[in-house]
């Protein structure tokens, strides 16, 4: 009981950090910090999705960038057609372009779900390192397909000029968009929280711990895992749609394996199988990326051999990210949430 209270406290603290960054940004008039916080939220949503498969289901997918990108392209394609006043396609049914997020999101969810159903149905026949590799292979296939598909910009990608619309929100307000992203994050986390505590979650976590026992109880681990994989991809796809609205641009780079790796790093940093892990991990990741990679370089002196070395070193801030990740994997399997709230479950 005390363990649960401590985790709740940690969760409130993590959410509080995000909120105080935005409050500070508003008071100090630093609009860029709001964009950065929105980036945190969107990567957190992507990681909430992966965490359902990886954390709760033990399915180490190295291909979630595919779903992130599919969600992104769904948003980008619909928005670009809305800009040109053309239809996406006319048969078998008419699909018009739109700039309404509330229409784009369901399309992104369905597209990610269909892709995940096909990829998962094949990949989940393998396990362990083969599963990691086959999900990577499928994501790379989709990545190369997007590059060689000239209709929507190919490798150069596709720009959208105005942020898509959400009822009651000002498309030019970064704060409004941040709040929309927070709403999507809250819904995603609520869904994962309910699922993992319901019958389905019991079966999913049981299948991670002991698939033989699940079979003997009359439940097919494959069906449970496939369902979780599809749900997981849908949440990551939603994050992709939001990401396109954040950077007003979509390109195959969203599907590259770097992105799969970054989403996975966020899940592991934050705490595998912990509800608020993805948010904690995304906070740490995005701010490491920003401060070590950009801000710190501007603040530190440039003169002298020592500072020259430091400046050069920060050019490769990912080394520090790598060391942090290594430390988490070796010494703190519960990630940030595990360190703060205790009770690292130490799997995955």
């Amino acid at each position: 009981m005390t363990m649960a209270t401590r985790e709740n406290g940690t969760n409130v603290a993590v959410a509080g950090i995000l909120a105080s960054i935005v409050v500070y940004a508003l008071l100090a008039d630093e609009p860029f910090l709001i964009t950065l916080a929105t980036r945190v939220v969107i990567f957190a949503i992507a990681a909430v999705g992966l965490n359902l498969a990886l954390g709760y289901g033990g399915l180490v997918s190295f291909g979630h960038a595919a779903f992130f990108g599919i969600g992104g392209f769904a948003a980008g394609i619909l928005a670009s057609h809305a800009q040109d006043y053309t239809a996406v396609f006319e048969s078998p049914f008419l699909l018009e372009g739109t700039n309404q997020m509330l229409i784009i999101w369901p399309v992104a969810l369905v597209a990610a779900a269909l892709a995940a159903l096909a990829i998962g149905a094949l990949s989940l026949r393998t396990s362990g390192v083969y599963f990691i590799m086959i999900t990577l292979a499928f994501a790379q296939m989709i990545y190369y397909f997007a590059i060689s598909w000239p209709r929507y910009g190919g490798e150069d990608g596709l720009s959208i000029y105005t942020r898509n619309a959400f009822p009651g929100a000002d498309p030019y307000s970064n704060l409004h968009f941040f709040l929309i992203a927070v709403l999507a994050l809250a819904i995603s986390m609520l869904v994962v929280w309910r699922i993992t505590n319901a019958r389905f979650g019991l079966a999913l976590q049981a299948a991670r711990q002991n698939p033989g026992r699940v079979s003997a109880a009359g439940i097919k681990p494959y069906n449970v895992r496939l369902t979780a994989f599809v749900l997981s991809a849908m949440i990551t796809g939603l994050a992709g749609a939001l990401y396109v609205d954040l950077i007003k641009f979509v390109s195959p780079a969203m599907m590259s394996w770097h992105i799969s790796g970054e989403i996975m790093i966020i899940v592991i940093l934050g705490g595998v199988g912990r509800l608020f892990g993805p948010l904690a991990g995304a906070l740490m990741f995005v701010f490491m990326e920003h401060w070590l990679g950009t801000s710190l370089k501007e603040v530190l002196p440039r003169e002298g051999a020592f500072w020259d070395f430091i400046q050069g070193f920060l050019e490769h801030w990912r080394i520090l990210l790598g060391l942090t990740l290594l430390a988490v994997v070796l010494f703190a399997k519960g990630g940030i949430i595990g360190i703060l709230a205790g009770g690292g479950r130490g799997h995955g």
Partner: protein
Amino acid sequence: MGEPVLDIRGISKSFGALKASDDVSLSLMPGEIHALIGPNGAGKSTLVKQIAGELASDSGSISFCGADISSLGPEARARAGLARSFQVSSILPEMSALENVELAVMGQSKRIFGFFRRSLTDARLAEPASRHLLRVGLEHRADVPAAELSHGERRQLEIAMALALKPKAFLLDEPMAGMGPEGSQRLTGFLDGLRSEAPLLLIEHDMDAVFRLADRISVLVYGRIIASGSVAEIRSNAEVRSAYLGDEAA
């Protein structure tokens, strides 16, 4: 005695040149405990996996409650009411004892795609699960993570999970393995009462338990059934004595 609940006819399984089970026929009649014994390496584990559906047989057929289940997977056989326990305790270590049993209740109910209602407090899961824990005497450990249960308690948990499947037959793979004398004696008494609920196919090394419980005994050696009969017949069977029992039965 009527129709057999479980009727295994001539099943075989080879791994390369090794015949792990060779034309094995066995039946399980209502209300009986049928013990399967055999020295190490006789192919008992292979046979259990074939019956449970984890290993496909090369030939032969298995029928259960009158239906051919030869082509069904382990999940479908479990849902049909063939409940197995494992030789090495197979539990969900991070979950509480209660949740372990809830999983089996859930499989039996065939309703696993619940995404909303909290499983831990769902009376349709928790109530039958607690009842089964109570039956095996583990109710005071319901909230303890299964990883923290003692060896003997894990054996009890296995039985509770089997009970939760509302089985029409039990397939118990060395349920006494690693239990102290007191524990095995208690479990023997428990299994004795179980046969009125559903017949048991009992794979067991503990000869005291086998001789006390079994209505029939079959002896498996090198993948073949070399003898099958009542306790007295098996005790006096010369072939069995030389192959397996040695001085122990004398």
